[in-house]
């Protein structure tokens, strides 16, 4: 047995090893080049691999490792002798056929770019369109349920019970009803309230809920100021902005996540590109709500300017850097003020609330501090 190796010292120092793919036994073999590659182990029938079926497998430098497409998938032949390896390589013409070639890489790049372009197009044109078309079709009960959930959340943050002073409530209802009629919102389930928190803000929730926070009420000097803000929020309701935003945000974050390979969207790139895209969409919605507010105020014969002045008193001048401008979800307050000032007209209609009603509205959360 051992004298065969004695005659071929080159093979014994750099052995050729064969694994048959069913066992991890290291089989020392000799190769013969017939019309197929013959792999012969002492005392066993030779295994024949057709040259055309032989493929290269990953290996460290100095070892040629071969697999065969018609053999068991894990069968491996390891040739350590350089001259023998060169002999085998010369005979196997399809050795590297399965590898990723330069063309393969180009194909990957091409398809990825195509996928990215189509995703970007969908984010820019498809999703806004879908949001605009779908939002009005969302059944009212579904919208209301989402609104209920948001309402509970808001109340957890801003105080559980709305402000309920009867005289103030009556004045608030009167104001809201006048605006609602002017806005042509025939949603009888619409609710509005004041929440006792010093944060100066107002928001609209899905399902026709409008909330004014007490901080805003405290800073407001006239019914017109408050009315302008309220009609802006009614504009959001009228345009289904909540549902549109929901569909839009869900859609874009999913698609951008798809692009960068992270569905939850937690990495920085995704966060950054999402905020850019979504802020621009929300700025459009805010501008549209402003337009709506201007229309309503004109219809009621009042000026939209006081509302912008109230906003300006709260936020101050906002513009500072490009980054905040691009990332801002609302248009800059100074731009809104400028716009509403252009739309300023002398009052032609009756005041929205009497002085007395306005005073009681200011006290809707009680006279004490929050």
């Amino acid at each position: 047995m051992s004298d065969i190796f004695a005659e071929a010292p080159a093979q014994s120092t750099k052995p050729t090893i064969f694994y048959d793919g069913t066992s991890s036994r290291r089989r020392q073999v000799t190769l013969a080049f017939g019309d197929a590659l013959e792999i012969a182990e002492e005392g066993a029938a030779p295994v024949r691999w057709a040259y055309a079926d032989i493929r290269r497998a990953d290996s460290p430098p100095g070892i040629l490792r071969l697999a065969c497409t018609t053999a068991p998938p894990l069968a491996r032949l390891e040739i350590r002798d350089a001259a023998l390896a060169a002999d085998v390589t010369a005979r196997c013409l399809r050795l590297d056929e399965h590898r990723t070639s330069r063309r393969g890489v180009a194909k990957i790049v091409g398809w990825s770019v195509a996928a990215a372009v189509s995703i970007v197009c969908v984010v820019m044109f498809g999703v806004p369109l879908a949001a605009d078309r779908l939002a009005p079709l969302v059944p009212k009960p579904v919208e209301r349920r989402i609104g209920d959930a948001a309402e509970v959340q808001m109340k957890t943050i801003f105080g559980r019970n709305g402000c309920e002073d009867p005289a103030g409530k009556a004045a608030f209802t009167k104001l809201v009803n006048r605006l609602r009629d002017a806005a042509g919102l025939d949603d009888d389930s619409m609710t509005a309230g004041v929440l006792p928190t010093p944060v100066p803000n107002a928001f609209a929730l899905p399902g026709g809920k409008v909330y004014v926070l007490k901080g805003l009420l405290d800073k407001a000097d006239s019914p017109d100021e408050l009315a302008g803000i309220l009609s802006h929020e009614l504009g959001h309701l009228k345009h289904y902005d909540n549902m549109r935003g929901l569909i839009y945000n869900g859609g874009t974050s999913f698609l951008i996540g798809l692009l960068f390979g992270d569905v939850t969207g937690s990495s920085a790139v995704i966060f950054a590109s999402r905020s850019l895209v979504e802020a621009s969409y929300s700025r459009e919605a805010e501008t549209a709500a402003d337009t709506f507010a201007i229309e309503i105020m004109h219809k009621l014969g009042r000026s939209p300017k006081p509302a912008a002045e109230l906003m300006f008193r709260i936020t101050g001048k906002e513009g500072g850097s490009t980054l905040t401008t691009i990332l801002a979800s609302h248009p800059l307050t100074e731009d809104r003020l400028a716009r509403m000032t252009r739309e300023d007209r002398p009052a032609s209609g009756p005041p929205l609330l009497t002085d007395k009603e306005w005073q009681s509205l200011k006290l809707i959360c009680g006279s004490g501090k929050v």
Partner: protein
Amino acid sequence: MNDMQWTPIGSEPIPPPLPPACVDFSGNRSEFRKMVTKGAMLELVTFGFYRFWLVTDIRRHLWALTAIDGDAAEYTGRAKELLVGFLFALAILMPIYLAYFLIGIEFERWQGFASTPLFIGFYAFGQFAIFRARRYRLTRTVWRGVRFWMDGSGWAYSFRAMAWGLLVFLTLGLALPWREAALERYKMQHSHYGDLRGDFEGDGWTFFKRAWWLWLLSPIALFIFPLAPFFYAEFKARQWRWWLDGIRIGDVSLSSNLPHDAFYGLYWKVIGWWLLLSTAFGFYIGGATMLAVKLGGVPAEEMFTPGNTSKSIPILVMMVIGYFAVALAVNIIMRIYLQRDLWAKVLETVEVHNIGAAADVRGGGQIASALGEGFADGLDVAGF
């Protein structure tokens, strides 16, 4: 010597215990650097889609250049499998996200922020993904013509991980060694090499004894920030060594003499590079702004006012380019130091005992799909 041992067929007296076999990693560092640099660039132009190919190339490189007892391993996974797995995972995750959203709304109606615990569901999913991703990688690992494989259930693993996670949470992290031991035992006992079954003999107590003082000292790192990398490196080295010492496959066992300070250099190099890149990025942005001011003739303070948007666009473009360049460089650095160098550093300390037990193992086991890797990718969890 090996020839003597393997050639005889049939019954033979058991050979005397051999000296432990070594694990050699013969990877060329500059070759790896070239591979990840090219890969990172392709990742950039393909918006990240190339990651499947790059990850596969990295694994093929690391596996093929790692020789155990003189025979190199092989990674037989392919990028297309990962891509398909990712797409399948997306198809499954999409309705789950929708359901999460709808159930969340119902919870929120009932009580504000009541849906927050639902997020735990995603954590459980992440644990499932970690198990299945390991199964994928293991079934693509071939040594001497026989593959590793894994059975067991991803959900059973996830349940264990969650229960132990709760315990770790309740004990402020003290139970972590026991969690690691229990989870690794589950994973290893369901791992196989051909007809050899794996096991994990590391126990929580040993790990605890090696690392408890790090747990005590860790609050200090919150105040003295530069200590944190030392602590983390120390912890990781102790964890690796404990893990390797515990691994058994049939009668084959591993041991490692990884020094406790083995990773100090690696982590500090990464931090150093990161600082360097951040500084360079800062200078770049400063320079770009100055250039724009000079060319545009608009003072720096007015550059960013709304009226000058058209003038500030070039700066934005330059910022974005700079950001991508930094992201690319960080990507390359992380892969070189924390994958390749860590791999090399750990492997050079590993010894394999009684490798003869794996001399004639019958192959078996089914290959697993890449769905787990897809989930891990989609949920952004990393596990091992």
